[in-house]
């Protein structure tokens, strides 16, 4: 009797310890994975699902990277192979290990017409459907890998110097990146040729960033969710039919315009100091 009691106690203790250790392992493992996937400023190949979903879907096979480096067009003039755009994250790259990404300043995306990297994706992490145009053809111009941003203070064109390196490098020249002509009041006789990126067309290929002449590029690509704001559905361009349509589709009861600040009267806002 005492023996079986002992056995039971031992069994219970072992079970408890196993469960506890499993929970410990699970928590450590989850914690590691959660940290490992937190690399928000990473540029993915064309057609990639939104980052959260992409990390789930990518099976880390590297077929995209292999298709990228071995594409027909990826040859130097002497016929030797060039480095591919897409890298596979290794230990030390500080990105979820085994996932594909690219760094524009090293090798930007050359926006191949046939998009070799996407159809080979077996898991659907690179989504072909997102790259189809109205004619149901693959269209690289539909890619949204990121969005280029100009840092005006370090862009020498904004100083008044003549540079249009990014503008000329852009594969969607005069569409994704235009030059805004302005008078240079400082000299009174020169023009500013200011690069302006248009977020509805820019694919985030990074050729502008690669071409930029400043020590650290004054134009650079960030993932779209990190380079774009959002006005929200309660702001509508009343003069724009398309935007009114967007506003027409909104669900009124889902729009929240009241916040702590709006509880005060407008005169409060103007006359008293407001803390944000």
């Amino acid at each position: 009797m005492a023996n079986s009691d002992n056995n039971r106690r031992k069994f219970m203790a072992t079970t408890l310890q196993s469960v506890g250790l499993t929970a410990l392992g699970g928590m450590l493992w989850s914690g590691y994975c959660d940290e490992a996937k937190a690399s928000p400023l990473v540029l993915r190949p064309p057609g990639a699902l939104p980052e959260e979903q992409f990390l789930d879907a990518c099976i880390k096979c590297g077929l995209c990277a292999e298709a990228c480096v071995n594409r027909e067009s990826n040859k130097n003039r002497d016929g030797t192979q060039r480095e591919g755009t897409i890298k596979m994250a290794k230990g030390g790259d500080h990105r979820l290990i085994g996932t594909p990404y690219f760094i524009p300043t090293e090798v930007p995306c050359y926006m191949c017409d046939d998009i070799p990297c996407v159809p080979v994706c077996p898991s659907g992490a690179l989504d072909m459907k997102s790259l189809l145009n109205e004619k149901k053809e693959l269209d690289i111009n539909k890619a949204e890998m990121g969005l280029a941003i100009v840092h005006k203070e370090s862009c020498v064109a904004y100083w008044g110097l003549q540079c249009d390196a990014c503008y000329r490098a852009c594969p969607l020249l005069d569409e994704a990146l235009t030059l805004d002509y302005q008078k240079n009041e400082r000299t009174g006789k020169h023009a500013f040729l200011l690069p302006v990126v248009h977020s509805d067309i820019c694919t985030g290929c990074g050729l502008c960033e690669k071409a930029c002449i400043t020590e650290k590029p004054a134009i650079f690509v960030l993932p779209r969710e990190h380079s774009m704001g959002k006005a929200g559905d309660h702001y509508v361009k009343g003069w724009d039919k398309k935007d009114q349509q967007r506003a027409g589709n909104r669900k009124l009861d889902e729009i929240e315009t009241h916040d702590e600040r709006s509880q005060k009267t407008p005169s409060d806002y103007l006359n008293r100091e407001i803390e944000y």
Partner: protein
Amino acid sequence: MKNLKYLLLRRVTQIGLMFLYFAANAYGWHILEGTFGSSKLFGFIPLADPYTTLQALSAGFVLGADVLVGALLITLFYMIVGGRAFCSWVCPINMVTDLANWLRRKLKLDKEEVNYRFLKRRTRYWIMVLGLIVSAIVGIAAFEALSPITIMQRGIIFGFGAGISVVVAIFLFDLFGVKNGWCGHLCPLGAAYSIIGQKSIIRVEHNHEACTACMECKIVCPENQVLHMINKKSISVTDGECTNCGRCIDVCNDDALGFSIRKLNKDS
């Protein structure tokens, strides 16, 4: 002179497969592309790792048909034919742990396997299940986020970077830490293949009449619990944890071990 037939065959297979994977990236060959997670054979036959696929599914993503079909093909192959052969004939980490194990024997670090309280050979099954749970919690394939197997494979194909440290860690763990520590105790991929390959038809068969009980086979076997019949019974090694590596056959000087086709009617 010891026979090295299966050892050499395995190394040729392992290195050959790795070279084909490497060449897919380096030279654009379309023989075997991708990595274990998902590959393409001859440019059109999809292959995928079943455990990786399960992780991605439990993380909540409905994978493309290529991966699902690929995982099914691989599962069927090992289930029917190969058993746990992935571990000893394909996986590159096997070369690392085999080297550690060999050095361990040469350095006489220990002859007997220490029985750790919480690091049993069945720990890997727990890790396998835990990997699926963690995948579901975190929303990414959890084991793939640290798998030394694909880290090593991608290292060979695309360059190692700091990833080499994981491979070195496995080597040191198996050499100075636990005997057969990684492949025999921890690796959830091996656990998955053990389960998949349980009933495969290719098996090692023991002839106890010929056995002289030298126990060489038990010394080299990385999963020597599967060799419980040595010098006792003339039966096949039916345990799924046997990797079909054939080392026991190589080292047997008495012709008491050999590959055979599982007898379908009886096998106890």
